[in-house]
């Protein structure tokens, strides 16, 4: 037997060596929830509040004036958590209450206006806790206006594994055929642009019809504030549509252009 030259001398017979291992400092990451709950059935599209995209959101059902929304709960495998962060989309006056569950009790960690369209980080007072649940509730302080509240993203700052890449949002397409309004003949080589406004940004897409007059725009945004479309073709009146309805998935819009 090869004998390694070390510090431990082992004598004939029984030798006892008890040791202690020092835990490594835990690494914290922003973690997306692993699930949600909507115990009051007061929310829609809950999954979109933790899909990794701030463009998409969960939306509350209508909340009456002087009323609280139902809580939206976020679940995580029990993890040491020191903070949470929220990307809310509500700019009007409101109060948001954020709570985390530990030691079998809900603890409020935030009761204030929650700024819209930015991350708000909220530390857990007194330091990290082992947490499996958090929830957010909004209050509509108006005297007469019903509100719906929107949560784009919610994340835990905890000791779990870093998250998987975000789930890509569903592909949304706009397609159709451009034809002559009088003859019905396809118009090839018509060019156009589609503009979209959402949040504080805009997006635009160019299109050209093929020999059969078909066009396709892939990977558009949906649930935007507005989608505007303009198409030019030689010999035709420019086509303008200031509010093209775009929903998730496939959208078809056939266009009949008027000759000049």
């Amino acid at each position, binding site marked *: *037997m*090869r*004998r*390694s*030259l*070390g*510090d*431990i*001398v*082992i*004598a*004939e*017979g*029984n*030798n*006892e*060596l*008890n*040791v*202690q*291992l*020092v*835990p*490594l400092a835990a690494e914290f990451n922003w973690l997306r929830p692993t699930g949600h709950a909507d115990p009051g059935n007061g929310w829609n599209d809950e999954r979109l509040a933790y899909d990794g995209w701030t463009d998409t959101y969960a939306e509350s059902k209508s909340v009456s004036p002087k009323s609280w929304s139902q809580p939206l709960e976020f679940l995580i495998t029990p993890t040491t958590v020191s903070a949470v962060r929220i990307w809310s989309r509500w700019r009007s006056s409101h109060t948001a209450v954020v709570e985390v569950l530990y030691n079998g009790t809900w603890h409020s960690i935030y009761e204030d206006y929650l700024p819209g369209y930015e991350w708000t980080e909220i530390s857990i007072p007194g330091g990290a806790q082992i947490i499996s649940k958090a929830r957010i509730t909004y209050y509509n302080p108006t005297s007469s206006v019903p509100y719906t509240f929107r949560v784009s993203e919610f994340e835990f700052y905890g000791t779990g594994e870093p998250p998987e890449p975000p789930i890509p949002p569903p592909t949304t397409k706009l397609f159709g055929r451009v034809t002559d309004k009088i003859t019905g003949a396809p118009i090839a080589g018509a060019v156009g642009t589609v503009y979209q406004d959402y949040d504080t940004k805009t997006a635009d897409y160019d299109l050209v019809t093929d020999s059969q007059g078909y066009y396709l725009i892939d990977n558009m945004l949906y649930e935007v504030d507005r989608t505007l479309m303009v198409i030019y073709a030689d010999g035709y009146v420019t086509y303008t549509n200031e509010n093209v309805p775009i929903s998730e998935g496939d959208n078809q819009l056939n266009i009949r252009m008027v000759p000049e």
Partner: protein
Amino acid sequence: MGDIVLQEGPNTLNVQLVPIPPPTANLYGVVTDAQAGSPIVGVKVTIDGQVTYSDLQGAYYFEGLEPGAYTITFEKEGYETLIR
């Protein structure tokens, strides 16, 4: 006066010696968390190329080692590796 009687002429005496087993050493112990004090299961313990893992009580055990000086390594994800 002994037990072997030699007679006149050649005498043959073949013998066998029974080997004495070499001395052996056993090593055992318990691995605990330095902060929590609780036993750590599944710690990889390596000594002279032999490997074992601590059990649910944090206990490990090697037997049949040759007495001598060794380096022993304790490894577990999430802990500093201990080399003694």
